[in-house]
Structure formats: structure tokens, C-alpha cells
């Protein structure tokens, strides 16, 4: 016993001991240095009680067991999935969680939620694993929202409303839980239907498109038929107008000639009359076969043969 103590004392001189001790103490105190990156915040607990919140930079704290420090990324946006697990969610085949709609249809919805840690102290100390809690709470808000909507709305026009309600509803609950989390967005990744009914839903979409096509077809028909009819109508009216004008012009023309003749006639009735008569006969008689009968005096018929007889 005394022999090993003596040899130990001989081997290690006090100077060495002091030096080693000082080094150990310095090393121990040195563990208190830590850095906080630009996108981080640190919360320091002294004997379990929150004593400081530190921003980016190099900081010092007392070493274990006095101070404890937690460094959190507060400006980086983090992601969590509703209805699917990250990072599996990065793949394309996300189906989502099955949800009942208000008209008792079953759809599967996957929502991606982005969040930041707004209050590091609350995030660390108020709730157990707040990051996983987000997904669970969002699931419940989604269920609550969709169960009050018809499936048609969920699949079509209701998407923004669902996203908005999931975001605001989840935020309200997380605030009530004092989770220190701020949601930045909730976006629906996919809404899928069971393969048993997907075809039927697709058919409804097709039918809706068919309806639109049919209506467009009818509009096209109307757009071709009506201008054509209008054109036809216009030409009909124009033709009638020209007929009217023609008739009037004819009448004016015919009567003008008549009135001129009448003027002449009234100046010299007998001469005009004879002249007209003879002119007419001149025009007519060469064309026709004529027999002149002097019946009153009982003479023989006299064929003047003013024109050769026609076969």
C-alpha cells in the first residue's frame, strides 16, 4: 500500500499535476462555447429554467450541469405530411388518408403542410413533439371539414376552401396548445378515389365535358344558321325593293310615252290615230296569213299574198 503510493508520488510531480488539472478545467469550461447559425435561435436553460434566448453568433454558457442549450432552426420552413409520411411523400405515388365526405362518399386526400417555429421556447417546452402533433391535428381538421362538404365540391371548387380551413383550423388549435408553431401553408397534393369508383367519377367529368361540347355545337349551329338566314332575308327584301322600283320605273316609262302620244293626239286626233293604226298594221300584217273578204259586196276573196304562205 505505502509502496505504490510512494512510487506514484515520485513519478508525478506536483507541477505536472497542477498543469493537468488546469488543462482539464480549461477544457471543461471550453465546452460552454457554442455558435448559433443565421437561421437559428438558441434557448438556454440554467438548472432547467429558461434563462436566455439567443440569436445568431458565437455565445458562451456555463458547462454541464448548470446550463443547457437547445438550438433550433426558426426561419427554415419545414414540411410535414397529412395522410402520408415524409419523405415518402416526395415520391409521386401518394394516395393520402381516407376521408368520409358529407354525402358519405370516400375520398383519399394528401396535404403537405409547411411551418416554421415561431416561438422556440414554447416549441421546446409546452408540448411533446409538436412537429408530429401538426400532422395529427391537421388530419382531424381535414376530417371535420370534408365531412361537411359534398364530394363534388371537395373534388372541384372546394379545394381552396379545404386548404384554407385546414390551415386556419390547425393554426387555431396549435395556438390553443401553445405549440410555438406558425403554419405557412397547407396545400392539397392529391385527391384520389378508390379504383372501384375512379372510373365512374371520370365518366362524370367526361359527361360534363360532353354537355359543354353539345352546347357549343348548338351555339355553332345557331351562329352559322342565323347569319345565313339574315343574308337570305336581306337579299329577299332587296329583290323586292328593286322589283318595286322597277315597276314604278316601268310605269313611269310607259306612261311617259303614252302621255307624249296623247299630247300629239290631242293636237291632231285624226292624223295621229291613223298614223298609229297604220304603223301597227305595218308591223303586224307582214307576219300573218291574211285573207281579205269583200263579203259585203259579194266579191271573190282576194289573196294579196303579201307574204309567202307558211308551210
Amino acid at each position, binding site marked *: 500500500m505505502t509502496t505504490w503510493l510512494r512510487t506514484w508520488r515520485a513519478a508525478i510531480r506536483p507541477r505536472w499535476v497542477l498543469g493537468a488539472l488546469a488543462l482539464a478545467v480549461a477544457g471543461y469550461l471550453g465546452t460552454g462555447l457554442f455558435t448559433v447559425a443565421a437561421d437559428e435561435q438558441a434557448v438556454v436553460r440554467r438548472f432547467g429554467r429558461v434563462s436566455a434566448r439567443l440569436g445568431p453568433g458565437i455565445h458562451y454558457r456555463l458547462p454541464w450541469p448548470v446550463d443547457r442549450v437547445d438550438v433550433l432552426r426558426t426561419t427554415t420552413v419545414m414540411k410535414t405530411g397529412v395522410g402520408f409520411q415524409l419523405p415518402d411523400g416526395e415520391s409521386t405515388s401518394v394516395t393520402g388518408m381516407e376521408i368520409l365526405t358529407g354525402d358519405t362518399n370516400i375520398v383519399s386526400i394528401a396535404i403537405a403542410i409547411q411551418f416554421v417555429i415561431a416561438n422556440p421556447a414554447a416549441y421546446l417546452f409546452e408540448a411533446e413533439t409538436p412537429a408530429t402533433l401538426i400532422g395529427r391535428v391537421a388530419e382531424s381538421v381535414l376530417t371535420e371539414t370534408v365531412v361537411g362538404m359534398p364530394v363534388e365540391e371537395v373534388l372541384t371548387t372546394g379545394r381552396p376552401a379545404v386548404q384554407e380551413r385546414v390551415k386556419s383550423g390547425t393554426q387555431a388549435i396549435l395556438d390553443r396548445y401553445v405549440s410555438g408553431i406558425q403554419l405557412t401553408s397547407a396545400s392539397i397534393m392529391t385527391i384520389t378515389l378508390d379504383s372501384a369508383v375512379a372510373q365512374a367519377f371520370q365518366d362524370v367529368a367526361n359527361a360534363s365535358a360532353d354537355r359543354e361540347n353539345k352546347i357549343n355545337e348548338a351555339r355553332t349551329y345557331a351562329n352559322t344558321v342565323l347569319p345565313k338566314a339574315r343574308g337570305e332575308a336581306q337579299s329577299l327584301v332587296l329583290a323586292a325593293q328593286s322589283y318595286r322600283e322597277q315597276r314604278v320605273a316601268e310605269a313611269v316609262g310607259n306612261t311617259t310615252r303614252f302621255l307624249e302620244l296623247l299630247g300629239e293626239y290631242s293636237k291632231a286626233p285624226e292624223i295621229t290615230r291613223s298614223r298609229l293604226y297604220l304603223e301597227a298594221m305595218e308591223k303586224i300584217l307582214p307576219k300573218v*296569213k291574211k285573207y281579205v273578204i269583200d263579203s259585203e259586196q259579194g266579191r271573190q276573196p282576194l289573196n294579196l299574198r303579201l307574204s309567202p304562205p307558211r308551210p
Partner: protein
Amino acid sequence: MTPLRRTLLVVAAAVAGLAVWSSLVVIDATEFGVVTRFGRVVRVATEPGLRVKWPEPFERVVRVDRRLLAFMPAPAEYLSEDRKNLVVHSLVTWRTVDPVRYLATAGSRSLAQERLADIVLAAVGNVIGSHPSSAVISVDGRTSRFAEVMRSILDEARPRILADYGIDLVDVRVRQLTLPEQNRANVFARMQAERGKIAMKYRSEGEREFRKLVAVADHEKTRILAEAYREAERLKAEGDAHAMQIYADAFGRGPQFYKFTRTLSAYEKMLDGNTTIFLPADAEIFKVLDGRPAGGGGR
């Protein structure tokens, strides 16, 4: 110093060090520290920080998590008032507020959650059983009493849990609401039938709308043409009337002369190469031949 005394000194120092160490206790921000003396609770450290107590076997510290904790009880099937089966996957969040009571009745987290699950699931069953399924499943979110139903579940279970276990039941939420597995086939069949009906409705609506639009267009076309016809006939009649008036005005000035000239022009048209006429020798045109003075007629 004898070796024995030296050894005793070292041991005493070690024991004293351990005693000091074990009489200091750090209570974290996330927990309550319940100090027990031989198993009996003597005080509760509700604030975080460094605490002093009697060293180990005399006084011990039991730490109780004071954070909000969440767990998901197993999904349970319930019958609503109108005999519809619903499977509820719930999410329960809770927080210990009275650590002494909590330690005395529940003791550990797993045990506490078991108890909570029992009470909450029973409460969910009671509330769902006393509401028709339409209270939660409804197409119009505004008339849905979902939130109200959930609140009544919470109201039913909360006071009891607080009194019995020192636990504040913060929230009971329906994470997922589904139908029993055996109902799924029916639901899908119904969904299919519904969609089929809607598709058919859309298609017949399209057909109806098509026919309507085409009929309207055709009607419009007929109307346009009829109006145009009317207008055209009116214009023609107007032209005819106007012309007639002009004729009447002109011819009225010399009716006899008109009759004469018109007759002559009618002859010109009537009589052509196929016509044979027998003229009396005393016809006016021949009067000159007879030696009688021409132009003596004037009939």
C-alpha cells in the same frame, strides 16, 4: 495516519459528496418535481430551477411531464342514433395539472393513457349514440353540428378526468372518421350508382340544351325569313300599287286614246306567223285601195 483511518476518511468524503450531489435536484421547464419522503409526498416543485432536498434514501424526486401530451386510442366502432356504424379514430391531448393526484391514481403515462382512452371512448360512444349520423356527416358544413358534438364529448369526459386523475383533458378530436370495412363495398357501389346518375343527367342536360338552342335558332331563322318575306311582299305590293296609280293617272287623261293604243299593241303581240286573219275588204287599211278616202273611220 494508519491506512485504516485514511481509508475511512476517503469513504466518508465520498459519501458526503454523494449526499450533497443527491440533495441537489434540477427541475426542468418541462416537468413537475414531486418530492416524496419514504414514499409520502411532502412538496411539489411546480417551478423549474435548482432545488434542495434531503439526500437519497430519505427524500426522492419523482418527475412528472407537464407538457401537452398526445396519443391516439385504437379506432373504435360506434352506432349512431339512426343505427349507422361509424369508426372513429380519435386523437386525445392531455396535460397533467395536479401531479400528486396523477401519481396517486395513474402513476405512469401508459397507465394514464389507458384510463383516458377508456373514458374518452365511452364518452364518444355516448355522444355519438345520442346523435343522428347527420349531425356529423352533412353536405352543408354550416348546418353540421360536428364541433358541437365534439365539444359535448369533451364536456362529458373532462370534469371527471380532472377530478379523478389530476389530468386536464385538453382536447378530443376525431382524426379520422370511416365506415366499417364490411360497409365499404356498399358505399362504393352506391357511389358508382350516384355518379352514373349524375353522368346521365349531364348528358341528357347537354342533349336537352342542344335541342333547345337548335330549336331557338331554327325558330329565329324562320322568323327572320318570314319577316323578310312579309317585307318583300309589302314592297312588291307597294311597287305594284304605285305603278298602277301612275298608269291610272296617265291613262285617265285619255281613256279613249288609251284603249286605242293599247289595243294596237295587243294586236302586235297577239298576231304572229301562226295566225291567219280574214280581213274584210273594207277594212280601214284597204280603204285607200278601194278608192275611198282613207282615215274616214273614227270608230
